C-alpha cells in the first residue's frame, strides 16, 4: 500500500472506534433491558451468571406480570388520552399564535418571539409547587385533568417556536395572492396556510405527544393514585411491592414504552433540530 493509503486508513479506523465505543455505551442499557425482560428470575438474580446471555431459557413471565397484574396497561391508556387532548389544546393555542407572530413584522414580532422562547426556559421544577396548589384549589388533584391543564405550559411555547420558523418560510406572496383573489386574511390562513403546513403541524403533534410521555415532575406531584397515573411515573414508582423491585417487568416496561417513542422521534428529528438551531446556524 502506498503512503497515502496508510494515512487514509488512520482517520477511518479512529472514526469507527469512536462510533463503536459510543454506540455501545449509549445503547447497551437498552440491550440490557431487552435481555432482562426475558430472563428468568433465577437467572437474573444469580450473581455469578453471565448477564449478557440466557443461561436458562427465556421466559414470558415478566411480560405476563406486567400486562396482567399491574396497572401498566391502564397507565398507557391514561397517557395516551392525556397526550391526545394536550395535542389538540396545543394545536388550538399554538398554530394561530405562531402564525400571527410569524407575520407580525417589525420589532414587536421579534420581541414576542423572544418572550415565548424565554418562557420555555422556566422549568417545571420551579413552578411545580405553586401549580400543585392551583391544581388542588381547582379540585383537579389526583386526576388526569390536572396534567391536561398544566402540560400545555411547556408544549405551547415549544410548538409556537417550532411553527414560527415554519410559517416564516412560507412566502408572504402566497397569502397576498389569495387575498387579491378574494379571501380574507383569516380565510387565507385556514384555506391556504394550514394545508401547506401539514408537515410542520405533524411535527408539532409528534413532539407534543413525546413531550407528554416523557414528563415526570408534574405527574408525580399532582397525581397519587395508581389508577390515574401516567406511564412515566407509574413504572418507576408502582412496579415495586414494599422494597422489592420487579426488575424483569420493570425492564420490559421501559423497553416497550421507549422504543415506539424513539421510532416516532427519529422520523421527525431533522425538523426538531432545525427548531433548536434556528438563528444559531445560518
Amino acid at each position: 500500500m502506498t503512503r497515502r493509503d496508510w494515512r487514509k486508513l488512520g482517520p477511518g479506523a479512529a472514526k469507527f472506534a469512536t462510533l463503536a465505543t459510543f454506540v455501545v455505551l449509549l445503547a447497551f442499557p437498552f440491550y440490557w433491558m431487552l435481555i432482562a425482560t426475558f430472563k428468568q428470575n433465577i437467572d437474573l438474580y444469580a450473581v455469578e451468571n453471565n448477564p449478557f446471555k440466557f443461561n436458562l431459557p427465556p421466559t414470558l413471565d415478566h411480560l405476563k406480570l406486567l400486562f396482567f397484574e399491574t396497572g401498566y396497561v391502564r397507565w398507557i391508556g391514561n397517557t395516551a388520552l392525556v397526550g391526545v387532548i394536550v395535542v389538540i389544546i396545543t394545536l388550538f393555542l399554538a398554530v394561530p399564535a405562531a402564525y400571527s407572530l410569524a407575520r407580525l413584522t417589525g420589532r414587536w414580532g421579534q420581541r414576542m418571539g423572544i418572550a415565548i422562547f424565554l418562557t420555555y426556559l422556566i422549568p417545571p421544577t420551579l413552578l411545580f409547587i405553586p401549580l400543585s396548589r392551583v391544581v388542588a384549589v381547582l379540585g383537579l388533584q389526583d386526576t388526569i385533568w390536572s396534567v391536561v391543564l398544566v402540560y400545555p405550559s411547556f408544549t405551547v411555547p415549544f410548538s409556537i417556536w417550532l411553527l414560527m420558523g415554519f410559517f416564516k418560510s412560507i412566502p408572504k406572496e402566497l397569502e397576498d395572492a389569495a387575498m387579491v383573489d378574494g379571501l380574507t386574511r383569516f380565510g387565507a390562513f385556514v384555506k391556504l396556510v394550514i394545508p401547506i403546513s401539514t408537515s410542520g403541524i405533524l411535527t408539532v403533534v409528534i413532539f407534543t405527544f413525546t413531550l407528554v410521555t416523557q414528563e415526570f415532575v408534574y405527574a408525580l406531584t399532582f397525581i397519587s393514585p395508581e389508577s390515574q397515573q401516567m406511564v412515566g411515573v407509574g413504572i418507576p414508582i408502582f412496579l415495586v411491592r414494599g422494597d422489592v423491585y420487579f426488575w424483569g417487568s420493570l425492564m420490559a416496561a421501559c423497553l416497550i414504552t421507549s422504543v415506539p417513542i424513539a421510532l416516532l422521534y427519529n422520523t421527525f428529528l431533522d425538523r426538531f433540530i432545525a427548531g433548536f438551531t434556528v438563528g444559531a446556524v445560518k
Partner: protein
Amino acid sequence: MFFPAAAYIVLLIGGPLVLAVMYAFSDARIGNPGFHYVGLENFRSILQSPSFRAALRNSVVFTVVAQIIVIVCSTMLSIALEKPFRGRKFTRFLILLPWVAPISLGAIGWKWILDSIYSVITWVLIWLHVCKPYGAPMWLGEPKLAMASVILVHCWRLIPFSTVIMLAGLTAIPKDIPEAAAIDGAGFWRILFRINIPMMAPIISVAVLFGTIFTFTDMTVVYILTAGGPFDSTQTLPSLAFATGIQGSDLAAGAAMSLFLIPVLVLIAYFMLRAAHRAEVT
C-alpha cells in the same frame, strides 16, 4: 389570534411564578396553605441548612462537569458521524435512544445497572479481574460513586442531544472552507481546531446552554436513582425542593429553594439572547 396562547401562558406560567415568589416569603404548608408574610425567614433557614448548601453545590458541580464531558464526547461523535456511511441512519437511531426514551425510564434502567449486588458493570469488572467478587463498589451507595453515577446518567442522556445539534452545525459549514484549508496546507487537527470548531461556536453554545438547563433543573434522575442520598450527597436544588415542598409538606421552604434556580436561568437566557443576536448580525 395570539391572545388565547398569550392568556394561557400568562395564567399558567406567569401566575405560578408570582405565586412561587409569594410562597417563598410566606409560611405556607400543604395542610395550611394560607399566606402569612414572614419576610426572609425561609431564606435564612435554608441557607443555614447543610442539606441546602450541599444541594446548591451539587447542582453546580453536576451541571458543569456533565457539560464538559458532554461537549467533548459529542464533538468526537459528531465528527465521526459527519460523512455518510452504510447504516448511518440505524447508528443514529441507536445513539439517540438515551435522549428520546422518557427520562424516568432511562433512569430506572440505570438504577438496575448500578444496583449494588446485581450490577452488570460490577460483573464485567469482576470478569476482568479488576474487582474481587462480593467486594463490589456500591455505585449508588457510596457518596462519591453516587455523585459520579448521577453525572454519568445525565451525560448519557445529553450526549445524543448535543451530538445531533453539533452535527447540524458541522454540516452547515460550507464545504469549500475545509477544502481551502487543506489546500493551504492544514492537516486534520489544524482544520478541526482552527477552522471547524471556531465556526461551530454558536452551535456549541446552543448545545451547552440547553444542556445546562436540562441538567440544572432536572430532579427526575436524582429522585429515581438515589432520592438524594446517600446522606444528601446527590441532592440537587430541584430534588431538594421537591423533597421539602411536596414530601415534606413545607411549601414555603420548597418554593424558596426553587427560586435559587432563577439566577442561573437568567444567566442562560442572557447568553442565549446574545448568541442569537450575534448570529443575526453575521
